[in-house]
């Protein structure tokens, strides 16, 4: 109810306020859709915000659902582009960027970062030149909630910061013929799934000298105070194992078709690629939109910009790695504390990861950002540089900045199997997700990197066309074709496997008869390629960053000529030229 009221409140306050006297840099102070970025939205709230954004910016936004999740929630996709001057061939000819979040639903801020991006892009159109250009020339497809069922499960069900990573399809994890029969239990009903301990002089654990809630091992020659009993829960099905078959379990980010391996090779893989219906909906959408040339999938945690390959045996062309490197180089500057790594070598081996599929089977340069870094605790690299920081560092941050809110103090409860035990530990809202005051910054910095990547998607251009008169009715039309952006129109991997068709340079014109075409990589046509078949439509394998391609057509007749470069991922451009211009 409270949530419903909140949404209603946002809607009514959307009435236009007077412009503020002082505009801070960053997000506008007088947005059409007022939104706060210091809390996390559940599915209904996120849905409400998406609808508000779409309603407030009808000329920029289209909100649609790809279909329903397992539990019946909508798979919202917000398409953002300037619809006013969409190309004649349709918006699908604009280079497009895919952004998603929350495929691992416990990785909360991934969703909010996508929502923030939707809000920021729409609010900044017409105010900020770079954003305006982006929306004039590119399309953004934003799917904030890849696992909407599990997002609400994280909000409303018993969990730690680590769950649920799975979606909610029932799976017999322990293959005993009983499904999801032994979930963890929130014994005291406080909403947090923490640890269990009993006071026991024979136990080998004791309190941390500085942070008494923390359990540390007693030295071999020291007496202990506590015995640890593992995470909150009990053995529901009397098989001797505790919490071994909870809701789920499969990993939606091991369900993608590139280098997919089954569960006994890749833990968490379900039955076959896209056996998770939500992913299948996304894959079908992406396959139907070959103009997608860049992608970002937000995760947490640890502060990483990850590129593939995920599988060690999967070798990607050096040429493509260089493109990833250039894009990420600036990302690391934008995201202090973040490291740029390749998944297989720098993190761990992943078969069937989403962004690997984007690259491997769709020819799309894609990153996975692991949001949240312990660097942000005190703006210095934590000891050991692990993903979470050490227990002590987290407790220190909790003490100094969270006023002790991060931890459920140990307290006594009645356990059905062990009798009186104590439960306590880190709250589910702390560990992987930033606290309120760091969330907005996290959203903005990650978005900035993603927009830089989006801006560097290929954008083709007919740089110039010259017409030269030869003998009789023979003419020579020479065009220079360019792509100024860091990303090529087709990756080397794409070219090698013919994932999308080659780029096409066409010459048309009334009464024009094209009799030959030559292609060269320098203006003198020293060793040109002779286009033997169909010279009016020249196939160009790829247009790399600032690497011009020179096309020379020999034609008979015609007064006006149009040169068009038509690419799948780099857009379309054309230039008209009159014969006299060339004289």
């Amino acid at each position, binding site marked *: 109810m409270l949530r419903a009221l909140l949404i209603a409140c946002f809607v009514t306050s959307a009435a236009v306020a007077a412009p503020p006297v002082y505009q801070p840099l960053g997000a506008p102070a007088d947005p059409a859709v007022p939104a706060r970025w210091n809390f996390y939205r559940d599915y209904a709230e996120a849905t409400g915000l998406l609808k508000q954004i779409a309603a407030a910016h009808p000329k920029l936004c289209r909100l649609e659902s790809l279909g329903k999740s397992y539990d019946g929630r909508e798979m919202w996709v917000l398409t953002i582009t300037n619809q006013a001057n969409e190309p004649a061939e349709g918006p699908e000819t604009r280079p497009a960027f895919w952004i998603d979040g929350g495929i691992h639903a416990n990785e909360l801020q991934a969703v909010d970062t996508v929502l923030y991006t939707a809000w920021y892009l729409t609010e900044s159109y017409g105010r900020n030149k770079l954003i305006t250009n982006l929306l004039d020339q590119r399309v953004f497809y934003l799917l904030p909630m890849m696992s909407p069922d599990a997002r609400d499960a994280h909000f409303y069900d018993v969990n730690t910061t680590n769950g649920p990573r799975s979606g909610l399809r029932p799976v017999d994890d322990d293959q005993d013929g009983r499904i999801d029969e032994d979930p963890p239990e929130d014994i005291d009903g406080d909403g947090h799934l923490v640890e269990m301990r009993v006071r026991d002089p024979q136990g080998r654990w004791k309190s941390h000298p500085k942070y008494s809630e923390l359990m540390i091992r007693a030295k071999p020659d020291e007496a202990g105070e506590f015995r640890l009993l593992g995470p909150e829960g009990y053995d529901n099905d009397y098989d001797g194992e505790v919490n071994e078959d909870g809701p789920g379990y499969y990993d939606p980010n091991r369900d993608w078709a590139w280098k997919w391996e089954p569960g006994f090779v890749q833990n968490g893989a379900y039955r076959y690629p*896209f056996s998770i219906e939500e992913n299948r909906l996304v894959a079908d959408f992406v396959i139907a939109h070959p103009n997608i040339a860049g992608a970002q999938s937000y995760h947490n945690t640890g502060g990483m910009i990850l590129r593939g390959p995920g599988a060690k045996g999967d070798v990607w062309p050096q040429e493509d790695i260089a493109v990833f490197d250039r894009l990420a180089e600036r990302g690391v500057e934008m995201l202090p504390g973040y490291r740029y790594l390749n998944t297989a070598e720098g993190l761990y081996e992943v078969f069937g990861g989403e962004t690997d599929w984007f690259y491997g089977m769709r020819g799309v340069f894609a990153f996975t950002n692991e949001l949240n870094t312990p660097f942000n605790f005190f703006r210095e690299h934590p000891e050991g540089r692990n993903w979470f920081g050490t227990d002590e560092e987290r407790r220190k941050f909790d003490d100094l900045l969270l006023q002790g809110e991060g931890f459920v103090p140990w307290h006594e409860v009645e356990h059905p199997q062990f009798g009186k035990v104590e439960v306590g530990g880190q709250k589910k809202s702390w560990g992987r997700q930033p606290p309120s005051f760091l969330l907005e910054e996290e959203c903005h910095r990650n978005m900035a990197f993603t927009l830089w990547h989006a801006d560097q998607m290929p954008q083709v251009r007919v740089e110039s066309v010259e017409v030269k008169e030869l003998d009789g009715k023979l003419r020579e039309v020479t065009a220079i074709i360019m792509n100024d952006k860091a990303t090529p129109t087709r990756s080397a991997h794409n070219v090698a496997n*013919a994932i999308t068709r*080659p780029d096409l340079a066409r010459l048309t014109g009334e009464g024009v008869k094209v009799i030959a075409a030559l292609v060269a990589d320098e203006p003198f046509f020293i060793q040109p390629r002779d286009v033997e078949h169909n010279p009016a439509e020249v196939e160009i394998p790829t247009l790399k960053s600032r690497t011009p391609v020179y096309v020379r057509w020999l034609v008979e007749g015609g007064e006006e000529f149009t040169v068009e470069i038509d690419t799948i991922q780099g857009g379309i451009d054309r230039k008209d030229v009159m014969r006299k211009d060339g004289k």
Partner: protein
Amino acid sequence: MMLRATVLLMLCATAAGAESWHDRFEKLGKLEVLAETAGERPVQLLTLGGDGADSRPAVLIVGAVDATKPWSADLAVGLAEVLAANEKLLKEITFYIVPDPSPDALRRSQAKPLVEASANLRPSDDDRDGRIDEDPPEDLNHDGFITSMRVTDPTGDYRPHPDDPRELVRVDRTKGERAEYRLLTEGIDNDHDDRWNEDGPGGVEFNRNFTWKYPYFKPGAGPHQVSESETRAVADFAFNHRNIFLVLSIGPEANLLKPWAKGKEGGLSKADADVYAWLAKSYADELKVKDAPTNGAGEGAFATWAHHHLGRWSLSTPAWWPVVEEKVAEKKDDEKSPPTDGEGSNNKTSADEKPKSEKKKDSDPAALRTLRWLDKNNPSAFIPWTKIEHPDFPGKTVEIGGVKPYAVAPTVEELAELAAQHAKWLTVVLAERAKLAIDEVKVEAAGEQVYRITAKVINTGRLPTSSKHGAMAKQLQQLEIELVAPKGSVFLSGSPRQRCGVLHGLGGSVEKQWLIRVIGNEDKLQVKVGEPSVGFVEREIVLLAHAEKP
């Protein structure tokens, strides 16, 4: 004239044909539709086993894995008919039968012109040039069949087979052989890419669309693994039925003829390889296998998936192939049935002029067997090489000829016999399936109301309770033993439910123990063991009657 199986199939697979299968099926068991294909055809499933079928160990039979063998769907139906009559067997084992897993592909065996095709009709860019289905074959000689086209060209890769010039064989230039022909399929190069008929209608092949060693970016593989509704339906059905312990498919993977070897990289463990070798031997013995064709590559295939990813015993056989009676070695003297067409026999004469040594060296029994079989059984199915004018090859000699699509097929009578033979073999094999017995339950009274119970479970069948690989693949339910103690009992040691692991065949056993304290007067307990794919057994014990005093 013999009625060929393809004719029967035509009756079955037409719109009315679905009905006709339905009629035949309905008498046998439960019929359901697993999925509808893109072409709006049903993927049908027949279940033999009546009430409680899903609660018994089961065999999944899939016919026509390769849609260029439409008769293999009929064979699956025939097999179902024989099995349906075996009431004794059906009390113990359920059969799930999918005769035609890819009906859109199989339906192409009735297209005009007729072209042999194993893919469904999803529009596909087979040659990955950005154009979809842009270079189909053409029936240039208007005979209703797409056959082959040979172009006289010394830069080609083919020459006439020295034993039968109707057949073309690849030259081995390292041996000094000279090529005479380019060999292409019948048609023109519609898109002028110097490739002929490389992107015709469709599609995705059922047998290239599975996950094991998926052939990325290859024609017929589809946009990704398990992309088609038919593939997904069959896979999901198999995943959802953990009572299936064995999958039998009719297709190019031929591990019943040449069992999969042990080894790394897609090979098997020795334990599993030994079982497959035994199963293949039983097949060879029962069906008197001769002139067996080679094993399919298995990439993206159904049968390899069923073993490696579904984790079940997976047996596959082409079931039928052309077998020529002995004496073919002396074919030349015996050759009493020359092709009906004069030109074919003329070609034969030219072969006879080749030196004898060369013939021997090049003899390729598999390639020639088909022609010999056709000469004997279906002589009009070879279309003799005949010259045509071809727009793509001005000034060159182009001839069209070859074997008519789908012409190499068993007769209806042969199919009936094959169904009977396969059913008989299957019955023999299934008698050797894993079977559990609770060998002994020992009850020891440790003191007042405290009992130590020991149960021993044994597999009396020859098949292990699962393959070694299946245990790793984790798609089967774990074999589990449960002690149901009198109400209120306390388990002092040993969880009520315990895992048994895999029991090997012919006496593999496991012993499990519990220490319980019985509170109250009840003195009966039960020991239950099993999992859906091997079945369940249980035994009731009266504590006092069995207890041995310490």
